[in-house]
């Protein structure tokens, strides 16, 4: 029974856990319950991925209603991979959360915090696994609304305005997506993604389809924080609690990229999106600007969390650049960077959470002398930073390698140079932190600072370790990404 219903359980397990978590009292019971559920969700996603790699796409009819009339959960290589990323990050971040949340959030809010985190996990998993367009919107809003709540729990009062700004922009983005879905429904009469893909070629001349395309583009690019629609991201990531930043930075934008991939490659099709409407002419310049401008802005930040947030926008630029190439190599680069960036940035933000716990601030001056006082944490930060730069033997190098390869395949020398310049800019802002941490002595009146507790160090090092391991042994990630890219492009059946 469990094996047949894995696609439903992937979403429904955290979903039923969320209200149950609200019933629990105290700080430890909700945390323990949420952690167990996140591990179960991770196990389910691993099972789904291995099933998909063995036997192909899984189709699950919710409620027994056959698609296209019923809601279908459809798992292929692309979303099995994204499911793995989201649930893995959840499974790693939740053990970390006990001490971090205990330190940053008042105790009476803990059950509600873990409930919101479980709801956010549910929403993200649901967006990824569903094969119905409107169901995607519903889960997107579930994950977004719980994210707004999570961000608003930050200690700084600017977390409130950051959350409100994210709410307004995120709702506009989601509403644009629902308008696009409505217009698609108007043209084709169906909401099932596979069915939409079959019916859209008959309607390519319709102006309604063009409007739907425009709304979907703006909505999804707002949600994934592509420059210039990224202004919600730096504040939201900077002022949220450390656990929340670590979780959202590694998952929310990745899932929005998945929405873009699903709508533009599977539903609307590459002929319509890229050959007829040449979307890559919009995506590539914006992505290149994102890489250069946001890496530069990151250099000038004095708050390390904000610096990494701008770095995230730049990394999303890399992903969109890879998508804009519309080739197997480019898409492989983009999809493998979904995994690589999740692991890198997740690890970096978790390391920052360790610093926040011990030092109380993540401003650049607070890092003085931290290299000696918190050696393991800062070394994790250094390794994560090297991965951001793209040093060989790290995952960042793998993504950049494939990106440059994709650029050179199409003779886009300028874009290859942009990618390398982005790496150089990353060197500058990472060096700023490393210099303060290792080369500047701690202030004379600084309180003694010890290393972060094991429950926070181990998850950080799991992610940073993964960013090294998967930079050396790339067969799993690149193999799956390549299969996913081929599925999206329709290269192999």
């Amino acid at each position: 029974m469990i094996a047949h219903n894995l696609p439903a359980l992937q979403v429904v397990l955290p979903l039923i856990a969320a209200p149950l978590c609200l019933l629990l009292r105290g700080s430890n019971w909700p945390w323990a319950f949420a952690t167990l559920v996140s591990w179960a969700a991770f196990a389910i996603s691993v099972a789904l991925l291995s099933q998909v790699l063995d036997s192909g796409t899984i189709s699950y009819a919710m409620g027994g209603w056959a698609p296209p009339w019923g809601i279908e959960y459809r798992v292929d290589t692309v979303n099995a991979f994204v499911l793995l990323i989201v649930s893995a990050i959840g499974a790693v971040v939740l053990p970390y959360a006990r001490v971090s949340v205990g330190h940053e959030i008042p105790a009476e809010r803990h059950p509600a915090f873990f409930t919101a985190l479980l709801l956010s996990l549910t929403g993200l998993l649901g967006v990824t696994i569903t094969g119905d367009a409107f169901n995607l919107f519903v889960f997107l809003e579930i994950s977004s609304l719980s994210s707004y709540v999570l961000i608003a729990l930050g200690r700084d009062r600017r977390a409130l305005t950051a959350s409100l700004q994210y709410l307004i922009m995120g709702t506009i983005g989601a509403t644009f997506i629902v308008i696009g879905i409505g217009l698609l429904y108007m043209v084709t009469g169906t909401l099932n993604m596979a069915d939409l893909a079959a019916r859209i070629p008959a309607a390519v001349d319709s102006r309604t389809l063009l409007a739907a395309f425009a709304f979907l583009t703006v909505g999804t690019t707002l949600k994934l924080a592509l420059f210039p629609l990224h202004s919600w991201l730096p504040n939201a990531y900077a002022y949220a609690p450390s656990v929340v930043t670590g979780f959202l930075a590694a998952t929310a934008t990745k899932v929005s990229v998945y929405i873009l991939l699903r709508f533009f490659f599977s539903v609307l099709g590459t002929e319509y999106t890229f050959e007829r409407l040449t979307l890559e002419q919009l995506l590539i310049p914006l992505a290149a600007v994102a890489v250069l401008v946001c890496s530069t802005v990151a250099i000038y930040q004095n708050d390390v969390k904000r610096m990494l947030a701008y770095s995230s926008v730049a990394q999303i630029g890399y992903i969109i650049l890879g998508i804009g190439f519309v080739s197997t190599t480019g898409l492989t680069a983009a999809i493998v960077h979904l995994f690589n960036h999740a692991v890198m940035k997740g690890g970096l933000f978790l390391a920052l959470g360790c610093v926040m716990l011990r030092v109380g601030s993540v401003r650049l001056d607070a890092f003085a002398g931290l290299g000696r006082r918190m050696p393991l944490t800062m070394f994790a930060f250094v390794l994560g930073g090297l991965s951001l730069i793209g040093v060989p033997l790290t995952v960042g190098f793998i993504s950049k390698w494939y990106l440059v390869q994709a650029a050179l395949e199409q003779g886009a020398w300028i874009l290859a140079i942009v990618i390398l310049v982005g790496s150089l800019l990353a060197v500058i802002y990472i060096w700023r932190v490393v210099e303060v941490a290792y080369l500047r002595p701690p202030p004379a009146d600084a309180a003694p600072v010890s290393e972060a507790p094991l429950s926070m160090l181990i998850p950080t090092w799991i992610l940073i370790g993964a960013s090294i391991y998967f930079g050396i042994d790339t067969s799993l990630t690149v193999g799956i990404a390549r299969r996913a890219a081929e599925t999206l492009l329709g290269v192999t059946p």
Partner: protein
Amino acid sequence: MRKHLVLRVVSKLLMPFILLFALYVQFHGDFGPGGGFQAGVIFGSTFILYALVYGVETARRVARDWVLRLFMITGVLIYIGVGYVALFLGGPFLDYNTLSAHDPVHGQHLGILLVELGVGITVAATMVTIFFAFASRGRG
């Protein structure tokens, strides 16, 4: 009790009828406009009306926080519970056909009824909770 006498008397007379109407809307969703969300909002509006006329403190003694929280959770659990029952009875998640051993249409009726009931309970509790959260702000 001299202030707003008409309001107090009329609202007290109307409240049971509003609750009854909410239940009507809840269970006649199959046959007319209605269903869980609408009924839940109408049900919640009774408590909000009570709070507006008689004061938030009095209303909070009628609808206590822990009761509201319990109802919020129960409603969601009823909805998802129906889905899990369908799972245990052998079908895919939320397949109402399995709910009734002899007649699948009967199962559909039962499934929709239970699911909408869960929605109604949660929505009513949530609306009242939201109102109390806003209305009790700034008092101390």
